[in-house]
């Protein structure tokens, strides 16, 4: 392949035989699907969409893009792509830190695992080679101990991406954790690894920044992107912007103010004690450090330390888990939230899904649908249940199946705030209408990151829209889905999109790879990737009527200031969205697949 940025090396690992084969990337595929998420989904489609997610034939892909590990700002992301055991869709879940950059510096764009090992193994990657090594001594260990053991074994310049006991126990929302606290959280990638007896991927590499194809163009493009990210007027401005100073949890107070913060399993749209768990309060009370990722001046990670009963030192006090384990469970105890997030990280579980299944169980308990007593905000009970889920003990075994399956078993599916089997995140679509259409049409189940409409509805990027208006949100969602599909394929942090636009991305992509591309070209690639995912899902059985929202968002009006009286007008937005997409009630027609050169 003659494109810059790529290592042009993929490892295919047969876990059954232990064999490792190396291959190049098809340049046509690289131009069409870029890398990371896009190329990962292409490998998934080629592997066949009918596989059992927890069977040996499922593919588990660790994917970089052509910008990963370069000097491009915020380029420290990796996508883990597989078929989800939670949703049955194709899924991709990204993490930051340094593992992605190190994988590139070790000479790889991707690692593809298939089959099932007869015994626990981990993959050790260094100098363009991958070896499978015995992980019997690590099986049964939490993420933190696994990371510590493997770092001690492999020394400096090493990243460990590991699963905990939840992955081993096939908790359907088990995740991979990188460097202790950076989660590829959603979709159950950790359970897929558990089913394959793959405990970890360990990468050792010294810094070796790939050279851009066009150095002068790269210098100009890089400076331009850096300038907009650093601008003091933007949310990304280092040590000045809200995202940099308070982290993602800077959102808690604004979503609460406008009546878009779900509480008590979304039975309410505001949380009276939101201020106690918001970014401002965290900074005042338990914040100790602001870590960052490869090539990122924003440093949105927030490291906290607590003492006493919920003593912990961790670095992922984010908005999403602060909401799911906080407001969503009626819990205003920030120390307990930090402790619970860390516990999720150690077991290797998606904290959004766990918080939602806990909130749903609290509602079930309140309605006396289950015999167990689980009170709102009972933090000790939440800790106990987290252990039970991670170990699949007692009621935890049912909760380990995810919110939707557990709600069905508890007897009321309407308690499940899920789409395609995955729980909704921290934005109530009665107060932020764009999130409603974004959740419903997300290709990986409910997700705020496929189309981050709050960028428009709260911040005003790319343009300000009214959070309570449904008109235009179908088109906005398509635009953002396409944009994020391509940034996830570079793989760049999505937060770059708060300052950069398609033209900034195009200039950097072109300079690194040598592929001449405009912003419109990138949006076209993003559209192709989004349709490729939808095509996979259609073939996997997601047909007409698969894009929906929980009844609660459609029929129970908000009672909070800012959104009082509002429900989410999904049908109207879906009509606009499908028209913009050229889909037939959620299904990609053959003509669209041909137009986008997918078939």
């Amino acid at each position, binding site marked *: 392949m003659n494109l810059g940025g790529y290592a042009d090396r993929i490892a295919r690992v047969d876990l059954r035989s232990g064999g490792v084969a190396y291959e190049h990337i098809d340049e046509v595929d690289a131009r069409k699907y870029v890398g990371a998420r896009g190329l990962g989904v292409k490998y998934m489609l080629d592997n066949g969409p009918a596989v059992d997610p927890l069977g040996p034939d499922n593919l588990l892909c660790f994917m970089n893009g052509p910008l990963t590990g370069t000097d491009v700002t915020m380029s420290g992301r990796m996508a883990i792509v597989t078929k989800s055991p939670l949703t049955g869709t194709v899924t991709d879940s990204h993490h930051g830190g340094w593992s992605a950059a190190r994988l590139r510096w070790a000479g790889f764009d991707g690692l593809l695992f298939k089959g099932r090992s007869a015994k626990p193994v981990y993959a050790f990657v260094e100098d363009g080679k991958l070896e499978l090594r015995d992980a019997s001594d690590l099986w049964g260990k939490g993420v933190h101990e696994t990371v510590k053991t493997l770092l001690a074994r492999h020394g400096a310049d090493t990243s460990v991406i590991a699963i905990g006991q939840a992955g081993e126990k096939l908790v359907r929302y088990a995740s991979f954790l990188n460097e202790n606290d950076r989660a590829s959280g959603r979709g159950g990638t950790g359970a897929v690894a558990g089913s394959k007896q793959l405990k970890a991927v360990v990468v050792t590499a010294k810094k070796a920044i790939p050279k851009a194809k066009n150095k002068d163009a790269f210098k100009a493009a890089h400076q331009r992107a850096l300038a907009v990210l650093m601008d003091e007027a933007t949310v990304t401005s280092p040590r000045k912007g809200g995202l940099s*100073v308070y982290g993602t949890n*800077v959102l808690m*107070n*604004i979503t609460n103010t*406008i009546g878009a913060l779900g509480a008590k399993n979304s039975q309410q749209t505001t949380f009276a004690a939101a201020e106690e768990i918001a970014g*401002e309060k965290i900074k005042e009370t338990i914040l100790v450090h602001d870590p960052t990722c490869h090539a990122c001046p924003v440093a949105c990670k927030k490291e906290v330390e607590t003492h006493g009963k919920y003593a912990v030192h961790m670095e992922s006090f984010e908005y999403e888990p602060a909401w799911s384990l906080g407001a969503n469970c009626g819990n205003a105890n920030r120390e307990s939230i930090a402790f619970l997030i860390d516990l999720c990280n150690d077991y290797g579980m998606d904290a959004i899904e766990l918080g939602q299944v806990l909130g749903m169980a609290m509602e079930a308990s309140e309605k006396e649908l289950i015999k167990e007593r689980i009170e709102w905000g009972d933090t000790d009970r939440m800790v106990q249940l987290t252990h039970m889920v991670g170990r699949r003990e007692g009621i935890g075994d049912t909760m380990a199946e995810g919110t939707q399956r557990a709600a069905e078993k508890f007897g009321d599916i309407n308690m499940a705030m899920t789409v395609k089997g995955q729980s909704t995140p921290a934005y109530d679509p009665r107060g932020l209408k764009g999130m409603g259409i974004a959740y419903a049409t997300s290709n990986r189940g409910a997700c705020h990151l496929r189309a981050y409409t709050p960028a428009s509805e709260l911040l*005003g990027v790319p343009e300000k829209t009214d959070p309570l208006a449904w008109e235009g949100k179908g088109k906005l969602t398509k635009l953002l889905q396409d944009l994020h599909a391509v940034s996830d394929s570079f793989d760049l942090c999505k937060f770059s999109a708060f300052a950069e636009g398609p033209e900034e991305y195009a200039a950097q992509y072109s300079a690194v790879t040598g592929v001449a591309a405009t912003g419109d070209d990138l949006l076209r690639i993003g559209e192709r990737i989004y349709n490729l995912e939808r095509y996979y899902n259609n073939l996997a059985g997601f047909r007409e009527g698969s894009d929906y929202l929980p009844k609660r968002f459609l029929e129970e009006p908000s009672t909070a200031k*800012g959104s009082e009286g509002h429900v989410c007008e999904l049908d109207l937005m879906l009509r606009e969205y499908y028209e913009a997409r050229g889909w037939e009630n959620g299904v990609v027609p053959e003509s669209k697949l041909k137009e986008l050169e997918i078939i």
Partner: protein
Amino acid sequence: MAAIRLYATLRARAGGEREVDVGLQPGASIGDAILALLARKPALEGHILDDAGRVVPYVSVFIEGRDIRYLDGLATVLSDGDEIAIFPPVAGG
């Protein structure tokens, strides 16, 4: 009296105060309230209103949870007891 709640970096600029009381006459607008706030907290000058007196891009002003862009802007008349909140640019994920 009216009270303005400040968030994130605006709160830090105002000395860490979550809420600032601004004395207002009946019939006052949100624009009047912001000018009164700036008189009490000069460190906020330029961070809520620009030189032309418009709300700075990406800054959000809410009355009772509603962005004033979708009310009558800075001319929106306040009612007794209205909750006012001002945010600097915020976003995350």
